[in-house]
């Protein structure tokens, strides 16, 4: 103990004796009625430590108090499936892949920290989601990242983007997980509020599924991993200002955490070893709310009681008080519940990996979470009151009154390129636009091959991983969102994102089975934002019901706004699919010379919310492209079929930028050119740049055209032949309109991101 710590701690005894002491609950973000409820629950004023714990657990971030009433739709509408082994409410959803293997995946946001300190903010976001996956009993096997920044040429983007990419890469690369995909999107709405959503996926034998329950009276509570420091206790430092000496500069405490992927790697290996040895009764990761969350959630989920001796927690910094220790967000820690007979073994095995492991408490049946600090009781609460019984709000909802005006401001009326030269130039301009250009600047900073099971990663439509070398069984995941569509119509915009991720997975030949989502919105206290939120959640829930795939978990991020300006409502959807044999996966590309290029789906005149409207006119208005989920299901079934019968050589989902961009990307992925003849009677501009959903560009091997057409007709999926792949041209040849060489395409498409950053 340093001399600075000579204050009497605010124990339960002290709290009972000083019922009227004023407490800074408002500074900690608690409303008056919330504070009163805490006093009711406890029958006295909370101690400082208790107040810290309630303020954390009842915050929006931990309690989902504004979103809960809406998220219940997911559980209500989720289709029944035997695959779902663990669902919403767990650290991450778990789905069965086959009789032996299960997969767990989840996406989470780390938006605000990534704005303050881009590298470490993004890095710790990746670290956090990996621990969620580990806590389910799975070996994390890949990560993905969905990133949104302000304008590509804005000076602050040059600060934020390289840092975020460095952070995502640094953490994932060092911990040894391949990055298999994601998104990089630019839009001024994210200026000052970048979105950094990280996804991780893990694999486990089904029988290894872990629980977060602190069950078994007398079981030991063990803290594993890094020491506890003053990381991220910004909010709670309010409590400290009263008790710190003059020189204890509470203000300088950072709310920034630094990640240590090396320790995370050791945590992973060590936990997996403990799971396999059957030594773990319960486990919970320490995430945003540190020990507070882990203790209360495990206790609430288990036999109801726990006793902790807080002074046993290994500390990194001197002079930390009980509430600091409870609130610290130090990274790379896990809480284990272990049979006392195994405690010694667990500690030994952890030490072998060079990890700190400390017994800090025991499971009880007292129904109370009791925390002592040097013999004084600083916390004595019913754990469920922290973990499960936080406030729930039904926030006011109001449809924005400019809806009708926005809807009639249609992009279909904007001026379009005239003549073939302008059309040709538009293809190039679009390929060079920040949202469509080559992402290599980002993705080559990520390891994509470690583990040796990555079958597809960027730039393919979905990441594909082999799970079993013997059977070839694997999974595909895609992560997609479209803030502009959701801004125009949050219900259909959310469904669009769902449909796109679903289609991306199907395009690789996999069958979609489960969904995770990250909902990035402005302030829930704004009724318009709440309206957007409600509409988006309903859209996803309805969509998943229709598609027959459950939402297994996700994350809500509110308060993404600068002043009164909220970001575009941005639901980011992750869809997971299974593929029986990854050798049948379908890449992006052009197959072999002489193969047929064809388009599945229907193209309508749908330009509102499109990349073209934005890139060419900075326009956002109208009604976004219609979503037809029944069609998406037929399309997915068709693609899976064509993949398994090897009747398809390559495929690429059409999304932002439409057919034009899909062709450009397919050409850039191959060494061939494309000879394209548009169907008679269509408007070439519309056909190239419309963003109608439900479309996929496919490449059919020679001799399979008839069979493929038959399969399409059988399922009622429209197919339109567009041309052939060709080794005599190397670029895009649009018959009767224009030619673009590979060099010209590459010159437009490559290097744009670096250029925006001033390189």
């Amino acid at each position, binding site marked *: 103990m340093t001399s600075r710590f000579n204050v009497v701690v605010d124990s339960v005894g002290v709290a009972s004796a000083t019922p009227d002491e004023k407490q800074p609950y408002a500074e900690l973000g608690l409303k008056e009625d919330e504070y009163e409820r805490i006093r009711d629950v406890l029958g006295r004023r909370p101690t400082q430590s208790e107040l810290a714990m309630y303020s954390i657990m009842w915050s929006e971030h931990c309690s989902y108090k504004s979103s809960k009433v809406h998220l219940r739709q997911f559980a209500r509408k989720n289709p029944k499936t035997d695959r779902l082994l663990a669902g919403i409410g767990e650290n991450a959803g778990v789905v069965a892949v086959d009789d032996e293997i299960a997969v767990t995946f989840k996406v989470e946001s780390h938006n605000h920290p990534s704005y303050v300190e881009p590298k470490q903010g993004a890095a710790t976001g990746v670290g956090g989601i990996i621990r969620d996956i580990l806590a389910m009993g799975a070996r994390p096997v890949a990560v993905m990242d969905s990133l949104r920044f302000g304008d590509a040429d804005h000076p602050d983007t040059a600060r934020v983007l390289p840092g975020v990419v*460095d952070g995502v*890469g*640094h953490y994932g*690369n*060092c911990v*040894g997980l391949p990055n298999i995909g994601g998104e990089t999107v630019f839009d001024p709405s994210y200026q000052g509020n970048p979105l950094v959503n990280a996804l991780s996926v893990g694999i486990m034998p089904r029988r290894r599924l872990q629980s977060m329950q602190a069950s078994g009276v007398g079981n030991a509570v063990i803290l594993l991993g890094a020491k506890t420091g003053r990381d991220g206790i910004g909010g709670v430092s309010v409590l400290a200002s009263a008790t710190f000496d003059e020189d204890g500069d509470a203000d300088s405490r950072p709310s920034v955490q630094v990640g*240590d*992927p*090396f*320790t995370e*790697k*050791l945590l992973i290996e060590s936990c997996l070893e403990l799971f396999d040895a059957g030594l773990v009764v319960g486990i919970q990761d320490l995430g945003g709310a540190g020990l507070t969350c882990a203790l209360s959630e495990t206790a609430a989920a288990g036999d109801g009681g726990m006793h902790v001796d807080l002074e046993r927690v290994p500390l990194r910094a001197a002079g930390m008080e009980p509430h600091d220790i409870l609130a610290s967000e130090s990274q790379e820690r896990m809480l284990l519940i272990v049979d006392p007979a195994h405690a010694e073994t667990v500690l030994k095995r952890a030490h*072998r*990996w*060079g990890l700190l492991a400390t017994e800090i408490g025991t499971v009880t049946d007292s129904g109370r979470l009791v925390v002592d600090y040097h013999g004084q009781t600083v916390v004595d609460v019913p754990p469920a009151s922290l973990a499960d019984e936080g406030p729930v709000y039904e926030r006011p909802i109001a449809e924005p009154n400019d809806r009708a005006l926005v809807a009639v401001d249609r992009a279909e009326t904007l001026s379009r390129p005239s003549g073939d030269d302008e059309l040709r130039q538009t293809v190039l301009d679009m390929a060079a636009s920040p949202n469509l250009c080559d992402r290599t600047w980002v*993705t*080559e*900073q*990520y*390891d*994509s*091959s*470690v*583990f*040796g*099971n*990555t*079958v597809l990663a960027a730039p393919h439509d979905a990441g594909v991983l*082999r799970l079993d*070398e013997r059977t070839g069984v694997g999974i595909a995941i895609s992560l997609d969102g479209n803030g502009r569509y959701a801004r125009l119509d949050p219900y259909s915009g959310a469904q669009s994102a769902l449909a796109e991720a679903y289609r991306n997975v199907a395009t690789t030949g996999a069958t979609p089975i489960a969904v995770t989502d990250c909902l990035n919105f402005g302030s829930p206290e704004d009724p318009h934002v709440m309206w957007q939120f409600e509409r988006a959640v309903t859209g996803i829930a309805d969509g998943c019901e229709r598609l027959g795939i459950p939402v297994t978990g996700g994350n809500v991020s509110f308060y993404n706004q600068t002043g009164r300006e909220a970001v575009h409502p941005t639901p980011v959807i992750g869809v997971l699919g299974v593929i029986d044999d*990854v*050798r049948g996966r379908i890449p992006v590309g052009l197959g072999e010379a002489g193969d047929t290029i064809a388009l599945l789906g229907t193209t309508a005149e749908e330009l509102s919310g499109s990349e073209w409207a934005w890139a060419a006119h900075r326009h956002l208005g109208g009604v976004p492209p219609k979503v037809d989920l029944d069609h998406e299901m037929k399309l997915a079934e068709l693609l899976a079929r064509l993949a398994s019968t090897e009747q398809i050589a390559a495929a690429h989902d059409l999304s932002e930028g439409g057919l034009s961009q899909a062709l450009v990307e397919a050409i850039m992925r191959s060494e061939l050119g494309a000879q394209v003849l548009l169907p008679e009677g269509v408007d070439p501009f519309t056909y190239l740049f419309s963003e109608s959903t439900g479309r996929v560009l496919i490449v059919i091997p020679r001799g399979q055209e008839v069979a493929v057409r038959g399969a399409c007709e059988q399922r009622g999926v429209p197919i339109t032949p567009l041309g052939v792949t060709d080794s005599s041209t190397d670029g895009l040849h649009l018959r009767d309109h224009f030619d673009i060489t590979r060099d010209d395409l590459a010159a437009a498409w490559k290097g744009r991101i670096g250029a925006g950053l001033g390189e």
Partner: protein
Amino acid sequence: MSGVVPEERRDRGTGARVGVVTFPGSLDDRDAARAVRLSGAEPVSLWHDEAALRSVDAVILPGGFSYGDYLRCGAIARFSEVMGLIADAAKSGLPVLGVCNGFQVLCESHLLPGALVRNAHLRYRNRPARMRVETAKTAWTRAYGEGAEVVFPAKHGEGRYVADEATLDELESAGRVVFRYLDNPNGAMRDIAGVCNEAGNVVGLMPHPEHAVEALTGPSTDGLGVVASVLAHLNEGAVR
């Protein structure tokens, strides 16, 4: 490019035991073991803190971030129990291959000359690296034709090979530059991707042969030649 390794050499079960060291923070140890297995030999895992070589016939130090690599890549791994044994055995001819972080460990341990520093462009970069096999006179390259072109994934932030001019000249003239980049991804001096010791039993390189062993997951299958080489070496005796 594929086919540098004759088919019959690939699957020959030699019964050879190839050790793969796991340091805390090793990442490509499983992949190295897979490459050994696919080449028909038996991978044997070696633990950093155990002074035991388990009668292996050769050793691979895999990629990763040993001990976090926070100070300098490979700086701490060098002091592990198993490295002491490996260093001694290497001096009496044990074939040792260091890939990426493993290469850094070999340089830090002074089993190979030079050092690996931050990429000239200052970023981690992951892309397939085209290289020329400059010499087939090492334990780990004898299955390649001299001058053969191979493609292995390169993925590192600190892979720029540096050494003083005299050392570089010495490496060149003694034929100890083993792999040379055709498209230098990191600013390495003289495009050096890999080097060997005087005896040719210790080889280090930055790009990852163990990630080029299956058409499904790698840019090529050229990496199979590395293990095939050491198996041939073990079968037929030292080349030098």
